[in-house]
């Protein structure tokens, strides 16, 4: 047995190394887990994108399961994601709020008029201060918030139909029940 051990130990170490490296292949270092998941959503008060005289705050989210989608017109992936959001809004399964991040009000309103508006309301975060409180580092990002205002999930990068069907909607349904 001791004779085989001499060969088995390096083989086992090699196998372990392969397992770690293989796992590493499917990990994306760009996806940093958010410390906000499981915590109350950061408080904020901003003007509405469509009306600078009306404010929107975290209090508007309470009492229902919501999505908060961080987007901007300068964000290429957001353009790709937009159609998916419009489709999700049509299903009526969840209210989608938007955080328009470091954008230009006119451009953003024109974008929504042209491409369709999936949002219940948009908060206009022109200097990105609220974005920092939410730990935003790359639009698009989408948060799922429960009735009590606790962040339950964060998706970084554009939403796709698959992600919505496999991750977002099942969690929304669970939080609603």
């Amino acid at each position, binding site marked *: 047995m001791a004779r085989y051990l001499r060969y088995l130990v390096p083989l086992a170490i090699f196998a372990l190394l392969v397992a770690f490296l293989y796992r590493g292949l499917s990990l994306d270092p760009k996806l940093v*887990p958010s410390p906000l998941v499981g915590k109350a959503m950061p408080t904020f008060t901003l003007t509405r994108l469509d009306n600078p005289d009306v404010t929107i705050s975290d209090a508007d989210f309470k009492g229902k399961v919501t999505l908060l989608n961080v987007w901007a017109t300068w964000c290429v992936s957001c353009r790709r994601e937009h159609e998916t959001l419009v489709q999700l809004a049509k299903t009526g399964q969840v209210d989608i709020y938007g955080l328009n991040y470091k954008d230009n009000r006119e451009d953003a309103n024109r974008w929504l008029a042209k491409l369709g508006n999936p949002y219940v309301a948009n908060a206009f975060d022109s200097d990105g201060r609220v974005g920092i409180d939410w*730990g935003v*580092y790359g639009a698009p990002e989408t948060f799922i918030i429960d009735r009590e205002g606790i962040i339950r999930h964060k998706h970084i990068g554009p939403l796709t139909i698959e992600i919505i069907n496999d991750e977002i909607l099942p969690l929304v349904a669970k939080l609603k029940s």
Partner: protein
Amino acid sequence: MNPMKLLIPLIPLLLVVAAPPLPAAVTLESFTFPTRAEEQHFKDVIGQLRCLVCQNETLADSDADLAHDLRAEVYEMMKSGKSDQEVIDFLVNRYGDFVLYNPPVKPSTYLIWYGPFVLLAIAALLLIRAVGRQRQVREPEISAEERKRLERLLGDDAGKGKQG
């Protein structure tokens, strides 16, 4: 070949190694500080924090839009008298431990912090065992006759060596 000639290709490498590191902060913002010490302190703090957009750059080095915003945020906080720890906590609460170049010691990082020492201990144990085993190897026993022959051969050899 002159051994000095062998070193010539290494000169550029030596120059790189010996060159002082480039100044870290090439910031575009015009932050103002009352003293040089405070400016250095600011640079030290942002030099410890990772930019989440260009992940291999510090907040001090990065030219990403987010890095500009976070530098401004850190600047404002330090100006208003917040401690280093408060600034760091502010960022960790929003972006996670990932913003720290120096990971904190906690259960999920035990492997990084203590793993090398565990490996070192295992290596030391194996070494001690290997050395111990080598010591146990006894000197081969030889008979009186063999010893006599050995001495004769060695003696001969030594004699030849002296003559030659």
